[in-house]
């Protein structure tokens, strides 16, 4: 049998970063082919190449045996490749049926728009994918899962030979996810090939026929899903046993450093969040994307005004209404989306490191450049920031090193509580390991750490306790010894309300 899609020796570099180092992959008709790998392993780059959005530096793509040259997005679409990205790429100010028609519409006489037919067609498609919205609804009024269904309807409409789904369940609730699995199964039965990217192993075991594992831009091989275990996949993805990735931590957990009681911020969707964080403790904050973890952190840090609840730092009741107050109380927040807000791209390493504690490198109200360089140099060495010097603009550093600079900045404020929001998102496995070591060191020095992460393995591997959020509330708090991926996922999906 000729595979629908064959990719041979695909290489792609961005500047000096080699994203793909000779990846080969074949996907057959009637197959759901799982693609797994850590963030930054090259999954997204690979599917962007299949979608024609990126050109590979080297390698060949064959569709049903025919080599394809210079794939563009339009060509990819016309060849029957449909890509459903994590973030739906729809036109928000157009209706559902217009969005579907834009992708593909049979020609009419005089190119007239037959609105009735267009809407009817959209309605049929929507019912096929199990969506109950009106074709005339504006996309901007739809929820994320609904938009995803529109994307899937587009793929179904195009009768794609190859459907690529990039983490389609990342923002879906359970019912929507099951509906999605049904559609994927239907696509497979109709003879289409499906490339399915997900971090959720359970669904891969349920859905996929084969799996290809990527690590650091290389393929670790393709295996029948039935022959794999959870452990096998993790080992292939990270290249070492889980225990080796996360540092062993045996630190004493001290008195409470932060107590949050019934914290509520209705406008940001945070409801009645309570927990206690102790000195030297890593409290994992798990939950699906959109479960309110970041919103909670921003409320705690004074970036959004809380409507109710109380906060106590070191046993004293406090009010936090601005980041300046939070800082003064010894809170530090390393935000998500480091590329945009974690560091100041125009500033060199030194100025980024000292930005939140300029008074410590000032003398008599004036900046002391020697002191600044010395301090920045200290942190650069301690955090093993790979930069030619502290004068290098952080723009020129890799993601992992930017994250280290961001961490260094907050550490310099000598916080009592450190909130880390997705600290290892999009950085390579080596840098990740270093960040984990740092988190361990900081906890050992008595800092209370709140670790927000969407990577289950990370939360499980690093936390002493795990608070799982669902729909803006804490669905449960699990002790390290009682936490496993399954329980956390159940809580995150809102299934059960177990706690300690």
């Amino acid at each position, binding site marked *: 049998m000729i595979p629908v899609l064959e990719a041979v020796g695909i290489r792609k570099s*961005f500047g000096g970063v080699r994203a793909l180092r000779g990846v080969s992959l074949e996907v057959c008709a009637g197959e759901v082919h799982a693609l797994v790998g850590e963030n930054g392993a090259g999954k997204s780059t690979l599917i962007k190449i299949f979608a024609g959005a990126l050109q590979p530096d080297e390698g060949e793509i064959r569709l049903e045996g025919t080599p394809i040259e210079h794939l563009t997005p339009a060509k990819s679409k016309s060849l029957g490749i449909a890509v459903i990205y994590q973030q739906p790429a729809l036109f928000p100010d157009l209706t559902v049926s217009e969005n579907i028609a834009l992708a593909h519409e049979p020609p009419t006489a005089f190119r007239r728009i037959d609105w009735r037919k267009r809407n009817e067609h959209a309605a049929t498609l929507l019912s096929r994918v199990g969506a109950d919205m009106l074709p005339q609804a504006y996309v901007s009024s739809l929820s994320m899962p609904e938009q995803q269904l529109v994307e899937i309807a587009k793929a179904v409409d195009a009768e794609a030979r190859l459907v690529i789904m990039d983490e389609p369940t990342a923002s879906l609730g359970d019912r929507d996810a099951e509906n999605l699995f049904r559609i994927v199964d239907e696509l497979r039965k109709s003879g289409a090939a499906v490339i399915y990217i997900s971090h959720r192993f359970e669904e891969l075991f349920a859905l996929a026929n084969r799996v290809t594992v990527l690590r650091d831009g290389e393929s670790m091989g393709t295996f029948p899903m039935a022959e794999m275990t959870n452990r096998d996949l993790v080992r292939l993805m990270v290249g070492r046993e889980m225990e080796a990735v996360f540092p062993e931590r045996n630190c004493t957990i001290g008195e409470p450093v932060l107590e949050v009681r019934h914290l509520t911020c209705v406008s940001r969707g945070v409801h009645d969040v309570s927990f206690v964080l102790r000195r030297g403790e890593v409290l994992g904050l798990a939950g699906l994307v959109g479960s309110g973890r970041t919103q909670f952190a921003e409320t705690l840090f004074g970036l959004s005004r809380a409507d109710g609840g109380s906060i106590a730092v070191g046993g004293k009741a406090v009010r936090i209404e601005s980041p300046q107050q939070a800082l003064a109380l010894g809170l530090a927040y390393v935000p998500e989306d480091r590329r945009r807000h974690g560091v*100041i791209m125009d500033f060199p390493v030194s100025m980024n490191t000292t930005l939140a504690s300029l008074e410590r490198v000032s003398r008599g109200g004036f900046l002391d450049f020697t002191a600044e360089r010395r301090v920045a140099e200290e942190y650069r060495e301690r955090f093993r920031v790979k930069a030619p010097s502290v004068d290098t603009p952080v723009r020129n550093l890799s993601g992992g090193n930017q994250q280290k600079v961001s961490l260094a900045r907050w550490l310099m404020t000598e916080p009592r509580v450190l909130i880390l929001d997705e600290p290892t998102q999009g950085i390579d496995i080596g840098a990740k390991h270093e960040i984990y070591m740092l988190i361990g060191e900081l906890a050992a020095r008595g800092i209370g750490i709140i670790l927000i992460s969407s990577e289950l393995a990370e939360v499980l591997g690093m936390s002493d306790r795990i608070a799982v959020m669902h729909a803006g509330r804490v669905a449960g708090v699990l002790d390290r010894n009682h936490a496993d991926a399954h329980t956390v996922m159940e809580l995150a999906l809102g299934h059960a309300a177990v706690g300690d």
Partner: protein
Amino acid sequence: MRKLLQREFAGFITLALFLIYLAFAAPSFYSLGNLRDIALANVSVLLISTGMTLVIVVAEIDISVGSLFAICGVCGGLLARGGLPIWMLPFAGIAIGSALGAANGGLVSFVKAPSIVVTLATMVAWREALNWATGGAWVENLPANFQWFGLGQAAGEAVLFSATAVLFLAILWASHNLPAFRSIYATGSDAEAARLAGINTKLVVFAAFVLVGALTGLASVLNAVRFSDVPANAGIGLELQSIAAVVVGGTPITGGRGRLMGTLIGVALLGIIGPALTYLQLSPYWEKAIQGGIILVTVLFDALASRAEKRPALA
């Protein structure tokens, strides 16, 4: 020195080449009197451009400085005529300018209105309010000691030059050495990141507008004392002059960077073109065209330079 000139390099080279060319083509350009006249004419532009640099660094813009200039001049004249001690005039200018700058800054940073619209509105509103109040009449019958603060021309000029130089150098020094100025650059680079780093970004933006207002007020008074009466239509086009000087000085209009040394070079470069044309016996109509050309060249240089800077990340 290398650090000092990085981005303002284009302006600096152009200025140097132009000055060398003038030394051969029109040596009389370098007469003391001429240089003094040029400096005198550009003192207020330099003060305003200094403030404008900071506003542009925080990624905002103020196009109302021309109107602020006119108001402060007229108010200064009226206060002098009303009996305010002459030595207090510069402080009165600073106070009025700060208040008007605070109005701009408040609307921009606390009401979150876009600065180009806010200052367009205040530019028109203040100018029209002034026209309405004065009926277009100049402030005349000023006290005898109004001109040159009653010091006489030579001493007055010395005061003018030294005050401007001291102020410029102080702000230049502060921009390197004060933590507060680093907040300005951080806010301009990435306001959200700066806010997350604990910087009160609203206050920073507000302060930049107050500062440009204060400097405009001072510039206006220092300019007014050169004449025996105060025109009601002063300062037209000052906003473009100062923005142009800032941009030619290597400060990108998108904010986040820029050095005051560059702005000084920008003011000098744009300021000598007019007088130089006279000495080169060319039509003064060329002035604007050449200034426009210089702005275009520096902006192009800037675009190329920042493209080269944004190399991909190190592996």
